[in-house]
Structures are given as C-alpha cells and as structure tokens.
C-alpha cells in the first residue's frame, strides 16, 4: 500500500530508519547497569541451593567481616516492616525474602550490601545458611495427587496444591458433538517451561532520599506506571506513597514479557536503599536471571477435535494442567487466569468448543509471563495447530487443504467464536495462498514424495494461526483493578516541532520511530521532528506498559487520537489564518488549503506558531492533547507459516531448510520494523520448537540455568527467514493497525513441529513434543525401525 505522506513527513507505510539507532550504534545507550550515582552501594543476593526446605539458621558474621560488606538483609529484617511478602500481579502472594521456608532453587534468601560488586559477591559466598531440605514436588500431576504435601502452608486452610480452575465454552453441547462425531482425534502435549532470556538481565538502581522521603527507582521494567502503583501498594504503609515514588525505565535490552513482574531483587534493593539511605544497585547475573525470574508457558494439554468424515471440524475440547511454580505470579489481566487461552479455536469455524485449565503449585520459580505472546495464545495455537494436523494425517487429507476447508470465511467477519471472541477482520485464505505460492507448496509435496520413496525424511509443516492482541477494553481487562487502557500526550511547540509521551515502554520495538510516524501521519509534521519519550512516571501519562503486542493497538491509537485532537484545533486556527470557515478547508498531511484554491494554504507548522502567537478569539493558547485510549475490541492478526525440514536419519537432527511467514497485522506503520519484529519472533519460535527448555531434576535442581544448557539459537541455527504479508485492516482501530510483535513467536513452533511430524507421518507418528531435540527424534526413528 502506498504511503499517504511524503518521504519528508514519513508517516505510515514508510520504512523510516530508526531514530534510536545512532545512540545504540555508538555505545551511548543508557541501560540499567550504565547508571551510577554518588555513594552507590551494590546488592548481591544469597540464593537457595535447594528447591524446598526449612531455613534453620542464617549466619552473616563471616560475610560482615569482609572489607566492604556493610549489611546483610534477611527475611526477618524485612518482616519488621511487613515487607517480607508481596502481592503478585494475579493477587497471589510471593516472598521477597523468606523467614522460614524456601520454595524453589535459586530463591532469594538474603541480600548482601557492599561497596563494590566484587565485595558483594564475596559476601554472598560467605553467608552461611543452614537448611533442613524437604522432598520437593516437581511434577504438577503428582502435586494434585491426594497424598502430595501441601506446599503453600502459609495460606490458611489450604489443603491441596490446586490454585484455580478456569473454563470456557459449553461443555454439554461440546460433549454431545464428540459423542456423535464421525472422527475424533486426540493429542496430549506439553508446551514446556521456557524463559525470555533477553540479553540484558534485570536490575535496578534504587535511590531513596531520606530528607525528602522520596524514592527514585531506575529499573528494567516494561510497565513503569503500573510498577509504581504496585510499589506504593506494597510499601505505602512505610511511607512510600505514590507521589513520593518515581520509576524510570531506561533503555531496555530486550523485555519480551520478562520485565513485567516485580521481582524480589527490586524490592530488596529498594528496602536496602531506604534502610541505608544511599543509592543501591542490583544487577542480576545470567544464572539468577534464568533460574529465578518468571518463566513462560508450562501447559500440559490434552486436546481433542471432533470432525465429520470429510474433515469438517465441528468441535474442540481441551483439558489443561498449568504448572505455576510456588506462586501464581503471572502477568495476565485479572479476570483471565488462563490468559486469552480461549482463542484456541483459532482460524476455524467450529460449532462448539470447551476448554478448561487447572493451575497447580510446584517447587519451581513462580511466574507465567506472557513471553512474546498475548497471554497464553502460544499454548492455544500450538495445541490447535498440532491437533488439526493429527486430523489431516488421520483422514489422509493434505494439512493445508484441511485448513482451507475449515477457515472462517472472510465474509463471516466480524466473527463470533464459540468461546466468546468477536474477531474483528480476517482473510485467512489470502494468507494461505500467498504462503503456498511463496514456498512452492505443490512442488515441495512432489519432492517429498520422491524423497520418501528413497527413504529420506523431509517434512512440510503448515500453521494458520489467529492472534488476539491489544489488551484491552476496560470492561474486560484490568491488572490489579487498573484498566488496561493506554495513553499519549502530544505537544506541538511554537516552531512546529513536537514531543509525544506515552504510557508504554519500548524494549527494542522502535517506539521512538513508529510513534513519531503515527503523529506524522495524523499531523503532517515530519516524523523526524517528533521526539518520543516513554518510561519516566514523572513525565509520561499513565499507561499499562508494553507487552502482549499492545502498544500499537492501545498507545498507538491514543497517539493517533491525540494528534487528531490537535489537528482539529489546527483546523480552527487555519480557518482563522486563511479567513475561511473550517468547512471550506481541505487537509492533506501537513497542509490546510482552501477548497478550490489550493495555493491558498497554511502549513501545520504555521498553525502551531499561531497557536502561541495569533489565536482565534476565545481560543485557549497552546497546541497539545492527551488521550487515554480504551479500545472497543481486541485486534485479531493472523497468518500462515510454512516450514520445510529435513531429518538426519543417523542423528535425529532436524534442519529447517526453508521457512515462509505470511503475516497480516492490518495496516502497517513501518514495514521495516514490522519485518524485523517477525524475524525476531520467528527466532524466538524456533528456540522452543527445537532447543530451549527449562527443566528440573527430581531433586529440584534447575538443569538449564545458564546459556550452557539454555540453548538460545545462534546465527548458525537460525534459518534465513522469508516473509510476506497481506493487509486486512482492523475496522475499529483508528489506524486500521493490529499489532505484530508476537505473531511469529506464536505461529512458528507449531509450523516446525508439524513439519517434523509430517516427515514421519507415513511411519504412523502423530506427535513430537517440543523442543524437538535430536535424541527425541532418534528415539522415534529407532522405534519405527528407520534409524541409520
């Protein structure tokens, strides 16, 4: 689609080079560990080597003998201020520091404060903690058994490890279809526990000013405003009320959902700064980051679909066990304990569906972050897209064709799904056609048949996903009661340059560029003249932050609406300057002209100047607007991904030969950035599909606690992604945009898994668990008698 604005204005549709790049490219970014304050001390954290047990004694004496070690904070110290527990975003509770029991390996046990990071590390090694280990509960299914020990003994009256039950859909109607269906297929699958593993770990610099009673926290957070509110709720009783707290989120080295929660380390650093009256810095190392920060996924799903003999899918039924670790510390909207898992009916027009999720406590780190996924959509899509393939193989129909025959037709939008969503717009067949064409689907099927005849293993995997983004409409979406709107404040200066501030926080998505383009699109100011700021709670308007691909659907819309308000005012000023009535004006980006007399015009910059110098009578001076955007609905981007894999019959290695991703995220603000988001998302999809998994042994030891074993793909494992797109605008978003940050993470794993299963389907294989490790594949090859 051709951009409406000139290259100079650089509004929507231009691949504008990023405004944030020069500082990052010259080493001038400001990430958390780059901040230093006079008198700053260092916090390092003593962590539990055991997964479950009682703390018998903490002896800090040897640590305090180390030169430079000033203090050791324990749970008992925090208990004096009632700060040893804190609420999670899902209204569960989580320890800041334990007073008696540790619940997972690497849990925070004590904080050592010292004059250097070296002294703090020595102090950590010198604190002696005596534990009485207990047998941890690592398996969520065993945790639900009657004789399982009750883990959350801190909760009065708790008699089991069950956290909550959630369900959606009409169970009876669904069961009825299953009873009468021609074909039922079923797969059990696990979407394993994974970790965002952003290259920058978490950290903060807490600076409490004892004279003013004011706290500034520079911290790696994707949601600074919400965090300030949470801090005020946690520590208001010790004098830290919200107006006394400033949260600054600096440049963030990747977030992906992992920098949404409040981790104990932040709170310990703040407590230390308050107690000692000096700035205290805490920077996680990688092992702490992987072992203690919130996980993602960990859904054990049992999925069935009922279909007619010809492949017409009628109903879906899913039963899920969700392993939450020792606390439900999800970052999900309050009313959605299983996130937006009910998008599981996907791109298909079903009669009925029923999904249920039961959440369980185990001795693992807490969490359940929306890792580059709008709250459990990854799990839902993986489940549906896998089981659709099972059906295709069972009835002998091409998986792409089966999908096409079951797609929600484009005429059916807005479409009401059986689990209650109103899909805004879609044209699934168009994305499928484009993906098939790009990859040469029919030729690949012929090649596969020839190879199969020769005993070679090649597979083609298809995934047609539907995402649900933009949380969210305030009637349904809140976090701890705070509605999930987002905000923008746009101010145009007299010389026609602007500053725009948002309630979100970029972590690499390029907001400084794309938001400027949105303002440029609406106001006709060159995007280069729009400075974008986020992340400082003292200056930016209140918003819920950046995660779940919500920035464009919410704050982006707020920016457009604020800009439109300014344009409306500018129109009045233009009419005044041109001495015509407003109705007689034409607008094209950047210029108001008199209808029928195009040479009689004023620029938006002229209007801005006039807003401060030459106003129509009675008009308030200035040129600014603030918008809090409460979206009327969510957005539903979609796409079709096709992947080709080859399997080594000797080693079981899977190599991704080609991967075509066709996305539809509605109208596009910056094609270059959208493509970059898709590349990154795909890479975070191949990770869990083939490499990444957070596992524990039966004694509770984390088995993937460093990059030695948490296998983040390098440039060598990552294929040369091929991308394409179709455009189906959102009918309700002011810009017709839908958001894109996470589609690829959601769509890639099932495409890869389906390709592997497709390569083995003729042997009777219907499912392979992710990550599809070589040894897992080889065990199948051996069982089927085809291993080299």
């Amino acid at each position: 689609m051709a951009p409406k604005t000139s290259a100079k204005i650089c509004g929507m549709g231009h691949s504008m080079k990023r405004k944030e790049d020069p500082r990052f490219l010259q080493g001038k970014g400001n990430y958390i560990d780059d901040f230093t304050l006079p008198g700053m001390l260092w916090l390092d954290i003593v962590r539990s080597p055991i997964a479950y047990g009682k703390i018998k004694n903490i002896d800090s004496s040897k640590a305090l003998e180390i030169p430079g070690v000033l203090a050791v904070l324990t749970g008992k110290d925090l208990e004096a201020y009632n700060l040893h527990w804190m609420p999670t975003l899902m209204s569960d509770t989580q320890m800041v520091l334990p007073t008696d029991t540790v619940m997972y390996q690497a849990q925070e046990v004590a904080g050592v404060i010292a004059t250097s990071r070296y002294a703090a590390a020595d102090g950590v090694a010198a604190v002696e903690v005596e534990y009485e280990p207990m047998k941890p509960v690592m398996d969520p299914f065993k945790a639900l058994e009657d004789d399982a020990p009750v883990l959350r003994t801190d909760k009065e009256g708790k008699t089991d490890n069950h956290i909550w039950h959630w369900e959606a859909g009409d169970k009876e109607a669904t069961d009825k279809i299953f009873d009468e269906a021609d074909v039922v297929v079923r797969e059990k699958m696990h979407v394993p526990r994974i970790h965002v593993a952003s290259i920058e770990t978490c950290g903060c610099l807490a600076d409490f000013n004892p004279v003013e009673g004011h706290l500034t926290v520079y911290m790696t957070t994707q949601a600074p405003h919400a965090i300030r509110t949470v801090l005020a709720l946690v520590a208001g009783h010790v004098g830290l009320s919200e107006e006394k707290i400033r949260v600054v989120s600096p440049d963030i080295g990747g977030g992906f959902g992992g920098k949404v929660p409040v981790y104990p380390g932040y709170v310990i650093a703040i407590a230390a700064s308050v107690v000692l009256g000096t700035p205290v810095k805490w920077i996680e190392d990688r092992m702490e980051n992987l072992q203690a920060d919130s996980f993602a996924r960990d859904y054990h799903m049992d999925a069935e679909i009922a279909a007619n003999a010809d492949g017409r899918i009628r109903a879906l039924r899913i039963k899920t066990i969700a392993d939450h670790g020792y606390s439900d510390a999800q970052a999900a909207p309050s009313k959605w304990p299983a996130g937006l898992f009910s998008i599981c009916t996907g791109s298909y027009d079903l009669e009925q569906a029923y999904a249920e999720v039961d959440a369980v406590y185990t001795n693992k780190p807490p969490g359940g972050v929306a890792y580059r996924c709008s709250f459990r959509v990854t799990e839902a899509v993986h489940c549906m897209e896998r089981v659709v393939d099972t059906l295709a193989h069972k009835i002998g129909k091409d998986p792409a064709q089966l999908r096409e025959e079951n797609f929600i037709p484009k005429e059916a939008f807005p479409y009401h799904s059986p689990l209650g969503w109103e899909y805004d717009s879609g044209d699934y067949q168009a994305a499928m056609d484009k993906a098939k064409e790009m990859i040469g689907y029919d030729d690949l099927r012929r090649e596969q048949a020839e190879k199969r005849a020769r005993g070679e293993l090649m597979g083609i995997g298809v995934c047609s996903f539907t995402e649900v983004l933009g949380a969210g409409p305030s009637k349904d979406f809140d976090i701890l009661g705070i509605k999930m709107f987002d905000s923008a404040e746009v101010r145009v200066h007299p010389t026609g340059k602007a500053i725009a501030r948002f309630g979100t926080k970029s972590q690499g998505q390029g907001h400084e560029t794309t938001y400027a383009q949105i303002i440029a699109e609406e106001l006709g100011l060159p995007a280069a003249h729009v400075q974008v700021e986020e992340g400082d709670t003292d200056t930016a308007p209140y918003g819920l932050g950046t995660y779940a691909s919500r920035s464009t659907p919410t704050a982006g819309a707020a920016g457009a609406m604020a800009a439109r308000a300014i344009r409306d005012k500018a129109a009045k000023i233009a009419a005044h300057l041109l001495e015509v009535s407003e109705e007689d004006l034409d607008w094209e980006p950047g210029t108001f002209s008199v209808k029928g007399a195009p040479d009689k015009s004023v620029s938006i910059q002229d209007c801005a100047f006039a807003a401060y110098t030459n106003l129509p009578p009675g008009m308030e001076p200035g040129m600014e607007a603030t918008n809090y955007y409460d979206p009327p609905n969510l957005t539903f981007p979609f796409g079709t991904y096709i992947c080709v894999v080859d399997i080594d019959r000797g080693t079981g290695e899977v190599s991704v030969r080609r991967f075509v991703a066709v996305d539809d995220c509605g109208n596009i603000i910056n094609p270059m950035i959208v493509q970059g988001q898709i590349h990154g998302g795909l890479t975070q999809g191949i990770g869990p599909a083939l490499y990444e998994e957070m596992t524990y042994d039966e004694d509770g030891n984390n088995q993937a606690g460093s990059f030695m074993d948490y296998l983040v793909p390098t440039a060598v494992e990552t294929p040369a992604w091929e991308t394409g797109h179709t455009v189906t605008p959102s009918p309700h978003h002011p810009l017709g945009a839908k958001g894109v940050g996470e589609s690829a993470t959601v769509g890639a794993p099932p495409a890869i898994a389906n390709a592997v299963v497709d390569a083995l389907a003729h042997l009777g294989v219907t499912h392979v668990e992710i990550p599809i490790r070589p040894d897992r594949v080889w065990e199948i090859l051996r069982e089927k008698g085809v291993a080299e």
Partner: protein
Amino acid sequence: MKIQDGFTIDAPAADVWALLSDPARVATLLPGAKMGDRIEDNTYSGGMFVKVGPLAVAYDGTVSFQLDEAERSVEVRARGRGKRGMGTADMTMTSQVVAHGDTRTEVTIDSDVVVTGILAQMGRGMIQVVSKKMLQEFVGNLTTALAQPAEEG
C-alpha cells in the same frame, strides 16, 4: 539419583562385614572423607573434600550408621552442606554383605544421592561422574584393605 553398584571379592564374608560395620575404618576408605567426633549414638560429625582437577568442593556435615548385624547390612547416611554456598549433598548408602561360599563375598551397594546447587545444575552429569569415581576408589580401597587383614589387625 539412585545408583546401584556392587562387587565380589575373594575374602570371607565375616572379614568384609567386620570392616564395613566399623564406621571409623569405613571413613578411611572413602576418598576425601574425614570423620570427626561422635555427636550422638551412631552419628558423627564429618567432612568431605572432593577435588577433581581444578574443581574443588568441600562439605561439612554429619554421618550416621545403622547396622543390621543379622542381615549384615549397614546403612550410612551422610548429610553435608557445601562451603561457600555450594549447595547440599545427602547420601544414603546401604551395603549388604552376602557370602558366596567360605572365601568369596558379594557386597551390594544401593545409594541414593541427592545433590543440590551448582554442581548438580551443570547439565553434564558431573555428579554421576564424580560419584562413580568415588565409588570406584572406595571399592579399590576396600579391596586393598581386605587383602591386608594382618596389617589392619
């Protein structure tokens, strides 16, 4: 982690049992082990130092012994806390002495080793390798000790 092991040696069962049922002597056979004072019945303070190349871990803790004279079996339970935050090690080892005729004896060893912390986290089976090596050395030392009953006496 459960490890089953065992060995058969040319020695009378009574001699083997005499050695295995004597905590002080068993401690001398375990590489890196150090036995301290008796804390209570059958329980002693103890320490363990494992050094494998540049890798060095020291544990402090307790060792207790449960003897079953009738079955000729001994359960040794060692609980250790690693120095410098190195995690914990908890081992329960049950050894049983079975006579095969007058001069040959089988010793079965069932151990359950629970190691926590950094050593157990390395996804490389380091614990298994170290345990295996220590058991090998223990069996070697035991065999040597049994071959020299005169010196022991």
